[in-house]
């Protein structure tokens, strides 16, 4: 794979308007050299999947702080698969209780969940590692 910028869609599905975290992460990823597209607020799962397709992204990062993650995340994963985007890395950030996070990952609905206290660096490092491994495989 050529040396190109990683493309990331940062999305805010659902109704909650808590966008502090999503904007900080978007900026952190951009400053780390990634190409970042931010959807803005109040996106439906369909809108998220469509934007991911149109923008041809490598990574989708979802921010959910409303407690609706167990509904929204599996729905978006399903729509990504339907749109032939099953290889896109799906990350989630927000207020996600540990049991829910384990379940989302075990069921294959998300690749990794980041929660309060995780640094920007830990997120960028995770994405870079994944991208490198993908390029090598």
């Amino acid at each position, binding site marked *: 794979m050529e040396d190109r910028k990683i493309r990331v869609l*940062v999305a805010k599905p*659902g*109704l*909650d*308007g*808590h*966008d*502090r975290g*999503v*904007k*900080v992460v*978007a*900026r*952190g990823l*951009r400053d780390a050299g990634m190409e*970042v597209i*931010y*959807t*803005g*607020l*109040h996106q*439906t799962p369909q809108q998220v999947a469509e934007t991911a397709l149109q923008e041809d992204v490598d990574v989708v990062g979802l921010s959910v702080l*409303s*407690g*609706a993650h*167990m*509904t*929204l995340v599996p729905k978006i994963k399903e729509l990504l698969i339907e749109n032939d985007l099953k290889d896109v890395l799906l990350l989630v950030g927000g*207020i996600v*209780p*540990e049991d829910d996070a384990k379940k989302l990952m075990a069921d294959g609905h998300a690749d990794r969940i980041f*929660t*309060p*206290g995780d*640094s*920007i*660096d830990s997120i960028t490092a995770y994405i870079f590692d994944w991208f490198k491994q993908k390029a090598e495989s």
Partner: protein
Amino acid sequence: MDLEKLERIKELKEVWEKELEDLKERCEPAETVSGQPVKILYTPLDTENLDYESDLGFPGRYPYTRGVQPNMYRGRLWTMRQFSGFGDAYDSNRRYRYLLEQGQTGLSVAFDMPTLMGYDSDSDRSLGEVGRCGVAIDSLEDMEILFDQIPLDQVTTSMTINGPAAILWCMYLATAEKQGISLDKVGGTIQNDILKEYIAQKSWIFPPEPSMRLITDIFEFATDHVPKWNTISISGYHIREAGSTAVQELAFTLADGFAYVEAGINAGLDVDRFAPRLSFFFNSHIDFFEEICKYRAARRIWARRMKEKYGAKDPRSLKMRFHTQTAGCSLTAQEPENNIVRTAYEALSAVLGGTQSLHTNSMDEVLALPSEKAVKIALRTQQVLAYETGVANTIDPLAGSYFIEAVTDKMEAEAEKYFKRIDELGGVLPAIDQGFFQQEIADAAYEFQKAVDRGEQVLVGVNRYRTDEPMELEILKIDPEVERKQLERLKRLKENRDGDKVTACLEELKRCAAASDNLIPKILDAVRAYATEGEITATLKEVFGEYREKPLF
């Protein structure tokens, strides 16, 4: 202080500064959590220009720097008001009655996301969100259940609702009517602050112009019919939670406040008729002294501008009354018990700053909605503060401190600089449209996070003294059954109500929305006929349209 004494102090200070040169300093920067540098010592040289009468005055007297009541907490303690709501109306009604039994003195309703955004529980947009972030309210029926056995002439209720504030307020008023209580006996607060929604909290429905109209309709209706109601709670809380600094919180909130005053005046209302019912809501963050100065500066700025710029004459128009909530964003998911301590310090600064009511966060709020145990500790934190520590005995006890007065002055001056910039952008609404506030806040939030990641901003248990021990804390789980039960009840309601009456009310509402009538009586009629929140919102959207934000980061 005479010049000779000041000269002497200057000399002594130079000697002391010499001594400092050989001493080592800790590596953490000497600045507030907002990144404002602070000196390590303040002296009379920092308050040279302070004039007691014009800058501080007496409590209950202009410019109200020392508090809005002459006797402050010697008369009545602050209202202990825990923000709460989850699941359906039955679940939250049980929690409210529990809190009242535990000695809480007022209620504060948290609604779920669909309610905040004007959707019914059966909307596609509500899937998975019903009862999660707060209580699900679709119609008057839910509101009646929410306040079952809670007499609305004996408690005051604060409702955090903005875009659809008029609708939820009408449901509350109709519930009071059903309890046989006349509206002039009903007291409470609706947040109703749409400007900070565009700026920070982001739960909006309609575009600015019709939103501002609904707000002034509420001002007018309340003045005539619900005189004990606080018609708006102009909020800095969410601006701060979104990442602003203390000065930004202060300046943006007050700028919003003045924008509402101007809207009221432009709608033809006399400033002294509606301004006495305006109230405020601030954050209490972890930087102890900075917060105290913020509250003192806020009162003084409000009083001065209301008097000098807007010509208010009624002292009640000049008094800034405010609610405070401790900072959710200062809490950590790691070692959540530490949050009890953070919250206690934050509560103390709110009280030393003269708040009228207070919510203390529960230790588990960074993880989920609070459990009953956690919320009880949070309430007890306030009770210990009020009854054991003695801090409520003396009014504004930190006044006269060189540090407190110097920083209070500085915050006022910094806020004035922001007011000037906002004016240059054409006012609050044009500044929102240009993304000014949003960008300022996003920048501050990013700077803060980078400081945390670098370890300069210390968070105990996160980037210092981290242990990664497994957490043992029971958290509140919302039963997925809530959504199903709520949908069933809504379906039954729609089958059993008088559908023709609902349609007629909504048509009348639509007609008036397109004209310029006060909409509150029409919304009240629709609510009484059990039209749902979603139906009323959809009707208004047909006339008003919807707000869209340009995303930026």
